[in-house]
């Protein structure tokens, strides 16, 4: 459990550092997981990195850490260095990929990973070794036809896949009422005859339980589950966006108080799993780790321009 908490703090610390680097002009572009971290790490820690497959989306910075990406690797991605394990600096940071870790590289395109995950899960079902595919996306992605096609296919073939929607109620500037018709995302599961669950994204144990249950079903051959984790987007959509342009100041300040990390910290302390001191220690150690990761990434080499045309096709 403390490992998970540590991962969450690490994600936050790295994100804070990214914003500092962005402000001094060292990082071009950031999509922040701020507000999603608890839900992301709770979900991944309920699964088996190494065994399962993960189709993450661009906001899954904390999920990537939970899948095994190191701070250094994520910083290499942030700086678009040659050592970026996802794409060698070719994609914008946030498109996480690592074959050996079972993290299937995404594109910046919203939606296509959903039916793709159904196909991956079909293969896992055929192989029959109990592995599953986890695919995450925002509520905006549920509007794409690919969301429907993916759930329909996975439900028909009882594919071992977990559809994990991180609903922060905003798709850049578009609020849920203009995005998702009907009561919510979880309710869409019934249309396909699969279970749909809505959980509070700031409730680590609730998310962990929901994903664990979905995983048991998937591994037992009972098919897909749709999980909607309600989270908050504590930052603008990305560093290219300023949400004050389209959100009420009151709404923003109200949401600012909903940071899930303090809540988790209190729970852990109240349950006696964490003390204020161990927490401080942890934070300090993380700061050092973040320092090192940043320093290493900053001086790491850029990709060789001569490699531009490589990997369009298999090497001859």
């Amino acid at each position, binding site marked *: 459990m403390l490992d998970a908490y540590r991962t969450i703090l690490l994600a936050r610390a790295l994100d804070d550092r990214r914003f500092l680097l962005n402000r001094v002009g060292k990082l071009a572009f950031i999509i922040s997981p701020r507000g999603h971290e608890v839900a992301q790490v709770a979900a991944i820690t309920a699964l088996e990195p190494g065994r399962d497959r993960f189709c993450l989306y661009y906001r899954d910075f904390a999920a990537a850490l939970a899948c095994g990406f190191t701070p250094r690797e994520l910083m290499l991605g942030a700086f678009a260095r040659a050592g970026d394990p996802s794409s060698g600096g070719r994609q914008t940071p946030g498109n996480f990929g690592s074959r050996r870790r079972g993290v299937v590289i995404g594109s910046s395109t919203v939606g296509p990973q959903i039916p793709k995950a159904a196909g991956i899960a079909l293969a896992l079902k055929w192989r029959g070794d109990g592995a599953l595919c986890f695919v995450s996306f925002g509520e905006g992605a549920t509007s794409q036809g690919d969301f429907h096609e993916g759930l329909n296919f996975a439900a028909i073939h009882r594919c071992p896949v977990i559809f994990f929607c991180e609903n922060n109620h905003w798709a850049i500037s578009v609020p849920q009422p203009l995005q998702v018709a009907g009561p919510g995302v979880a309710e869409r599961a019934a249309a396909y005859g699969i279970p749909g669950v809505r959980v509070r994204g700031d409730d680590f144990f609730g998310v962990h339980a929901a994903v664990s249950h979905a995983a048991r079903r998937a591994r037992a051959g009972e098919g897909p589950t749709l999980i909607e984790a309600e989270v908050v987007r504590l930052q603008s959509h990305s560093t290219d966006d300023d949400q004050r342009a389209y959100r009420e100041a009151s709404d923003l300040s109200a949401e600012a108080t909903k940071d899930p990390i303090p809540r988790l910290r209190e729970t852990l302390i109240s349950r006696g799993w964490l003390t204020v001191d161990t927490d401080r220690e942890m934070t300090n150690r993380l700061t050092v780790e973040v320092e090192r990761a940043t320093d290493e990434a900053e001086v790491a080499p850029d990709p060789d*321009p001569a490699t531009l045309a490589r990997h369009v096709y298999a090497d001859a």
Partner: protein
Amino acid sequence: MPERTLVQAVRDALAEEMERDERVCVLGEDVGLKGGVFKATEGLQRRFGAQRVLDTPLAESSIAAVAQGLALEGYRPVAEMQFADYSFPAFNQIVNEIAKIRYRSNGDFSCPLVIRAPTGGGVRGALYHSQSVEAYYCHVPGLKVLLPSTAADAKGLLKAAIRDPDPVIFLEPKKLYRAERGEVADGDAALRPIGEALVVRPGSALTVITYGFMRAVSLEAAGILARENIDVEVIDLRTLRPWDVEACVRSVRQTGRVAVVYEANRTGGFGAEVAAELAERCFADLDAPVTRIASPDVPAMPFNPGLEDAYMLNPEKIADRLGALARY
């Protein structure tokens, strides 16, 4: 006349046409209060209301389909695809439905709408915010495809597109949104005819035919060659379908040399159509091979600046090729 950037000119065109014709409406992702990710629709929702400036769900196929439905009912929708790279989910609606409805109904139905999309690279947008997609749409009978590269053309052609009786794909070089500025007329005086190329730099040694961001880059290349007393004529197509073959033929007849410069991937790019047509039409006048200067056949712009630079054409790369052509 007021100075405007290209993106301001787009916004002015939308505002003027919405003012002029209440059937004109705008729809797309984040076009409302946010005013679009490039601010092309900024302020329009406050001015014209949330009906005429509609924030749609994140679903490009339905954006195109809804725009088509509105057009069939007599509205004049301008749909925005947030990036040209994201027009592909709408490809079936655009190619099979929108482009063909007039033809398949034997003229009983028509679909006057505009689909706007920021196109091209050089903004560190990486693979999925940098693609040049014009070739896909230029192959589609029933569509018109515009790709302006100045503020005045952007405004004039967008206004013309909105008034056009047929569906128009309107591609905006995002690299020029703020970089490109110039004087732009108000109202109908700003209108530009669809289908007319423009000689943006007269010259006698060779003809460069280009469009979009490559117009500015080609002009710089021409400047470099001018120092070697190679006098390059530069033509900006502005409209890609239907493109102004005659204007290009006229120029090539005089210079006897032509290079087609385009930012898209070389193979199968729209420049291939231009090169093939001119090679056929101007055969007797050519003193050198019709030359294509384009981006490599790599999926799209990588994010890393060094890789992005390696991918992009620049004045030096173009000048080298043009110099060789002039000396051929």
